[in-house]
């Protein structure tokens, strides 16, 4: 094949453009759009299309500008694509059928000398190269034949409108990789909606298109082609050639009489011979692709930034709800909210019998007190209070966590993109975590154990005193817990018994140490509650962390697109009105 007449400056521009395209692809891949923001579905699709377009066409094309002109024969099911390709090639390379949709891998017919251009690493790298017909959609069948002129390759794509979704997707992918579309329609098809949507896309990105009106009875060719030409003109394809292929007898090999396709064949041969015209077609399609790519990139960049903002908003929503609930919970654990019901009664039983206080004043011996306690069951009473504290705290924290989860989930549901995350989450985000009760239980146990340890260490030298021994570590720890939970302004019903608890504490360890104990116990409880709720809130933001959105993805993308635009502009200025690159 002959090399296109291109200057050195153009080559430099081409290699620069290639670099920028690769960078643009990288920037696009970094700009993921995971959240369902308004209108994001279309942008996601655009992003994928742009990436595909870069990988399947623009980058390979820029890497090998001298490769043959890839002509993709596309169109509707039943419009006669296979017959047309067979006739153009001159023998049967694909099996046309009356049954729809025809399912088989695409066929690429090329001149034997052009084979090097269609290796695995070139065009359409996802599709495996095979040399025999197959029905595998992930393959592409290569047919080297002298019937195809050097410099042109013909690719037979699946239909764009059949019920086979895989066919439609592959057709879209192949058409996106084409230098030139040979779009086939028929008398029954030419006003169908689906093919025209494809043609509209082609017109938008100035892909070179030639239309073939196939399977048309000779007597109506004139009427239909006239109407079709008007439709083309009104839809931005007035410069595209229109070929008519009359309906004719098909040979057993699936070929039409040669004369029926002579016009198309002649046109292709002329293109093959004319390197300049071929290059112009490639330039037009690549240039159009790049123009539409950069134009599509800006909204994607905006969307990537919106995603970041939205994720930030979602995190704020959760944070706000959990803040409110955390505040409520911390208040509830210091204002005597818990000193009700069972806990209050058991505490009053523990502290209120009077014997406890009296025993502090009496100068009684250690052994005797142990005996008395054993008989009267004071330690059991302390145990009962401790278990009531455990239950009370556990239900209080779980209940608040449930409220926080319900509020956070509701706040997310109020946003369209948050609802998606709530629905997609592995666990029910409107509820507290399933193992929360267990974790709270563990924390409350740990807190009570810590209080005992605190009492033991803080009480220092009084540890062997009769008073201390009378109440016991457990009893003091329980008293400390209740005093902390009661806070400074306990409810009236509990005030009396709390005053006694405070007196008890002060009587045993002294007023200073009692204050210190209260402070430390309080801090420890708050820390534990904060940690528990933080774990709960974290369930919401964890998925967003996984996406690892780069904060500057949008800016990078814009910069990449701007560099491409600059290159395009420079090329246009340099070459006058000639080039698109």
């Amino acid at each position: 094949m002959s090399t296109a007449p291109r200057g050195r400056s153009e080559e430099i521009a081409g290699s620069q453009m290639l670099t920028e395209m690769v960078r643009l692809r990288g920037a696009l891949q970094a700009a993921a759009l995971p959240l369902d923001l308004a209108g994001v579905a279309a942008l996601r699709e655009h992003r994928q299309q742009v990436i595909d377009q870069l990988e399947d066409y623009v980058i390979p094309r820029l890497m090998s500008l001298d490769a043959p002109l890839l002509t993709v024969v596309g169109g509707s099911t039943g419009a006669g694509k296979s017959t047309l390709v067979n006739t153009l090639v001159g023998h049967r390379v694909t099996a046309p059928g009356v049954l729809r949709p025809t399912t088989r891998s695409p066929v690429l017919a090329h001149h034997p000398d052009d084979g090097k251009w269609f290796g695995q690493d070139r065009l359409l790298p996802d599709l495996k190269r095979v040399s025999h017909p197959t029905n595998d959609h992930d393959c592409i069948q290569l047919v080297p034949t002298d019937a195809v002129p050097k410099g042109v390759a013909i690719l037979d794509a699946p239909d764009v409108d059949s019920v086979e979704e895989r066919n439609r997707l592959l057709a879209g992918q192949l058409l996106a990789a084409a230098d030139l579309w040979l779009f086939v329609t028929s008398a029954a098809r030419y006003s169908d909606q689906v093919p025209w949507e494809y043609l509209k896309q082609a017109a938008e990105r100035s892909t070179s298109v030639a239309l073939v009106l196939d399977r048309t009875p000779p007597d109506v060719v004139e009427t239909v082609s006239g109407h079709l030409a008007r439709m083309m003109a009104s839809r931005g394809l007035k410069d595209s050639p229109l070929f008519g292929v009359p309906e004719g007898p098909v040979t057993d090999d699936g070929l039409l009489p040669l004369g029926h396709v002579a016009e198309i064949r002649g046109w292709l041969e002329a293109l093959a011979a004319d390197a300049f015209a071929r290059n112009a077609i490639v330039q037009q399609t690549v240039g159009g692709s790049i123009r539409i790519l950069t134009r599509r990139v800006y909204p994607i960049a905006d969307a990537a930034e919106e995603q970041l903002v939205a994720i930030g908003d979602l995190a704020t929503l959760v944070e706000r709800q959990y803040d409110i609930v955390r505040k409520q919970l911390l208040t509830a654990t210091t204002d005597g909210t818990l000193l009700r019901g069972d806990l209050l009664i058991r505490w009053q039983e523990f502290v209120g019998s009077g014997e406890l206080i009296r025993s502090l004043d009496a100068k009684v011996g250690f052994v005797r007190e142990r005996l008395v306690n054993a008989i009267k069951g004071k330690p059991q009473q302390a145990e009962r209070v401790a278990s009531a504290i455990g239950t009370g705290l556990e239900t209080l924290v779980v209940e608040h966590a449930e409220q926080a989860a319900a509020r956070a989930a509701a706040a997310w549901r109020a946003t369209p993109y948050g609802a998606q995350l709530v629905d997609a989450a592995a666990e029910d985000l409107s509820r507290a975590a399933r193992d929360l009760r267990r974790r709270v239980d563990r924390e409350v146990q740990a807190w009570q154990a810590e209080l005992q340890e605190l009492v033991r260490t803080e009480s220092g030298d009084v540890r062997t005193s009769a008073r201390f021994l009378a109440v016991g570590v457990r009893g003091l720890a329980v008293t400390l817990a209740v005093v902390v939970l009661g806070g400074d302004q306990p409810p009236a019903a509990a005030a009396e018994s709390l005053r006694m608890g405070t007196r008890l504490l002060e009587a045993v360890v002294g007023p200073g140490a009692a204050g210190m104990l209260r402070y430390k116990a309080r801090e420890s409880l708050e820390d534990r509650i904060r940690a528990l709720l933080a774990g709960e809130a974290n369930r919401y933001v964890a998925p967003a962390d996984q996406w690892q959105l780069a904060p500057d993805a949008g800016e990078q993308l814009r910069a990449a697109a701007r560099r491409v635009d600059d290159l395009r502009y420079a090329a246009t200025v340099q070459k006058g009105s000639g080039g698109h690159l």
Partner: protein
Amino acid sequence: MTEPDGESRELRDLATRGTSIGARLEGLERAVSAARGRLDDALLDETEATVERATARLRLSAHHTVVAIAGATGSGKSSTFNALTGLELSSTGVRRPTTSWATACVWGSEGAEEVLDWLGIPPRHQTMRDSMLDTNFDDRALDGVVLMDLPDHDSTEVAHHLEVDRLVELADLLVWVLDPQKYADAALHDRYLAPYATHAGVMLIVLNHIDTIAPDKRQSMVDDVKRLLANDGLGAVKVIPISAREGIGVEELRQEIASRVEQKRSTTARVEADVAAAAGRLDRAGGDAPPRDISPQQARALEERVAEAAGVPTIAAAVERSIRSRAARAVAWPPVALVAGLGRRRQDEQLAGHRADSPPQTVAVQRAAVDNGIRELADEASQGLAAPWADSVRDAAISRLDEIDDALDGGLGTVDLRADRVPGWVALVRVLQWLVFLGAVGGGVWWAVLASQGTLDEAPEVAGFALPPVVLAGGLVLGLLLWLVFRPLVGGTARARGAAADDALREVVSDVLAKQVVAPTNGALASYSAFRSGIAHAQQ
């Protein structure tokens, strides 16, 4: 939803007398009204529209069957229409799309006006077959047919698609015209065939242009069409290969339509298919978990939890203890009681004024525990329900937690525990004990006075004993006896008081929960039951 007014219901009753369709439509209506506010409004509106459409159709001429011929542009709808009518009513041509408006041809015009009016087909696009003076066709077979030629569904003219969408919903029998080029188009299968999988009974598929296929390949093409239809869930639909141009199969198609029309079943079948499809959609959206309500066991379990949270068992035990000690003191020999009482008072003073034996009182409930219990009940009650219903049930149960807690606190606070008053008989025994004790003291004093005066012998005698010592001894013995007799009864009384307090507190709990939790939750569950039963009626 708005209840259908009396007149339309009456008309529907008239139209559906003797059939189950009226009951099925009503079932659908009930399901919609039960689900309103819970399921997606768009779905419910759509279902209501189905009911309205069905009602409207059933009110119209039962004599007429609306047959719609639909298909892609260029598949030959109009040629098929013309072949069936035997007239060139619809324009055919090579320029696509050809047909822009629906055209109708009616065999047997009596009563057809209102049907055509309902279909929205203007008179200029109507043809009355019996208004023409030709009797070439055996038209009796198609008597009562309203045959419509629809525009295409796949051309670049979007207005055509909208007209097709509208009329496809109204036709009693849908005849889809396919052709060898277009029979596998996604535009047809994805939009009009697969979504109508429920309507196989009111559908016919015509494979037109069969003459363009070699005779030996025709059967395999019909089989292929059937394969694609089976993929759409329409395997049961009849496929008739025809060529409107060559006249192949047209008679068979006419016969098929005629037989459907003759059975006069198409209208009902279409409505039934619509109802079944709508019921199916509701069923999928609303879930099919069995209806339930809150069982007495569940309600009791919640009461138990709330009672715990209010400390009811502990309070009851305290009441029992309090009554036991008071009653025991009351029936005891007064000096003993007095000493015990004094001892207690001294302790109390040490406790900075706190009275350890002050009568037990109710305390406020542990709110978190109550809320938790209700939340768990809501979970149980909504388990397995589809999300919208589960939300509604949970909402009914837990939306007023604060009010419930306040009501519990208020209610429990007003309960008289009667912990500081001993029963009447105990009070009586106390008086008796004091009387007897005073009597004994009197006897003792008398004896002492007589003894000091040395006039002991002058004292009256009873059975040979001086009276004063007898009074003293009798008083003491009687006091002891009273104590011995009544002391054992104290335990029972105290237990009874404790149990009474327990009952009174639990009654408050049970009352509040029944009114504020169980009743609203059962209300939401009842709506779900109504929804399920409505769907069951619609699907019968």
